[in-house]
């Protein structure tokens, strides 16, 4: 069977545009059936595929500056798809798909050893410490395109893979095999009122992500755009989520640096 060209789905988040409003988080929660609890204030016990960090430049008032950094799963490519989390899963519950560049997580395969969580430096992986419970009636808002996760498994952002599946379904029914850029967008990119999140195929020069980032695909997708950077570039995880900023301190906050004095 002939196969369409491989995609490398990725995201660019303009940190100078992001306002930290949280629409991406909520849109993600609604799209992906994220459970909520009476007390979700301990963010280390809470499930949220998208987390908005609040970065500070560490300077005193009034030189203090802040920046908001939304963090979905980085969908690391590593070397040949061996992202930090994928190779450690003992039960093949998480995988890197060369056709899309998406790191999958199969909740029914996962048995909750949490090795992947220890492996991920971005803390994108979250464990279902509790049974998900919806107050009576609110389970009606659950999206059937995304499985509800049971207690005891790890979950993470899938780049709204279910939206890819349903978009492909529509395309197949209409006799097409390829998707237009706007046909497959993640919930966060779609919702962002500031237009800070751009999503698309990094392999496709016509897609906005490619045009913005200008990825050097021969070198793990390093951005050629000088304003673009990736989190923890030095680790060699080769994430497919890029960040844009014109502020130097924000850029520096994206990676660790040994001070040469």
């Amino acid at each position: 069977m002939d196969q369409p060209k491989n995609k490398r789905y990725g995201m660019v988040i303009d940190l100078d545009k992001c306002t930290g409003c949280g629409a991406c988080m909520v849109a993600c929660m609604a799209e992906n059936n994220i459970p909520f609890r009476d007390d979700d204030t301990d963010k280390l016990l809470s499930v949220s595929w998208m987390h908005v960090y609040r970065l500070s430049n560490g300077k005193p008032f009034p030189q203090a500056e802040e920046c908001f950094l939304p963090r979905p799963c980085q969908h690391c490519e590593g070397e040949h798809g061996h992202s930090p989390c994928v190779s450690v899963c003992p039960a093949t519950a998480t995988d890197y798909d060369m056709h899309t560049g998406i790191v999958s997580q199969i909740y029914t395969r996962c048995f909750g050893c949490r090795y992947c969580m220890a492996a991920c430096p971005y803390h994108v992986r979250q464990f279902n410490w509790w049974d998900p419970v919806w107050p009576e009636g609110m389970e009606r808002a659950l999206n059937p395109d995304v499985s509800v996760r049971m207690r005891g498994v790890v979950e993470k952002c899938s780049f709204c893979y279910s939206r890819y599946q349903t978009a492909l379904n529509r395309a197949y029914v209409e006799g097409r095999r390829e998707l237009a850029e706007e046909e497959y967008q993640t919930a966060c990119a779609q919702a962002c009122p500031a237009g800070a999140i751009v999503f698309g195929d990094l392999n496709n020069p016509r897609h906005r992500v490619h045009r913005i980032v200008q990825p050097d695909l021969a070198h793990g997708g390093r951005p050629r755009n000088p304003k673009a950077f990736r989190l923890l570039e030095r680790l060699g995880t080769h994430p497919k989520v890029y960040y844009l900023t014109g502020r130097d301190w924000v850029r520096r906050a994206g990676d660790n640096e040994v001070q040469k004095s």
Partner: protein
Amino acid sequence: MEEPKSSAPSSRSEPGQGGQGDGAGGAIILFFILGLAASLLVGWVAFPALLYSEKRQPVDFNHALHNEIVDHGCASCHFFRADGGFSGAPKLAQCIECHREANSDDPEEIRFVEEYVKPGREVPWLVYARQPDCVFFSHAAHVRLGGIDCAVCHGPMGESTSLRPYQENRITGYSRDIWGWNIAGIKRNSWDRMKMDDCAECHAQARVPGGSVQTQKDGCFVCHK
């Protein structure tokens, strides 16, 4: 306190043991066979009977009869929706298009009209092929793209004149068709089982190119959600 010397009875028992051996050997073999037979009976006969509960479909639908009347075969009632999804078991609204009133004096049709059409109640069909929630099955990919016939997975359902009983796994809540009706999991036809391995088998045969880094087969998200 007991006798400090205890080696005597042990040495005494040894020849006795050998003596008993022949007579007891037969008994041992017999009991072994008894145990074996009993457990095989339990495992192969009693267990499957206990594991599944049998349910009848709400309406005994005659596929063969309908297939003769309709113009587009299976697709007449089971079609692709505009959202790319597959309609699956028809909604009452579809049935009503022809069955506002009973078209025959078939008692089953009359009952269907009385119990469902008139009160406007959806028919709670039991879907033999219903997959677990974690599965994303794209009819579009298989039928439109792959050109696979319905029967490859669903068997000659369209030729049936009556709906066979639906068996539900008491533990998992799923249809017996998923594991297959053969309790040993032996399949003779492509539609005999619908477990993940069966999907994978067909994908391997069809040389669906694998994107998985871990397995070199299909990526997990191809069939999961």
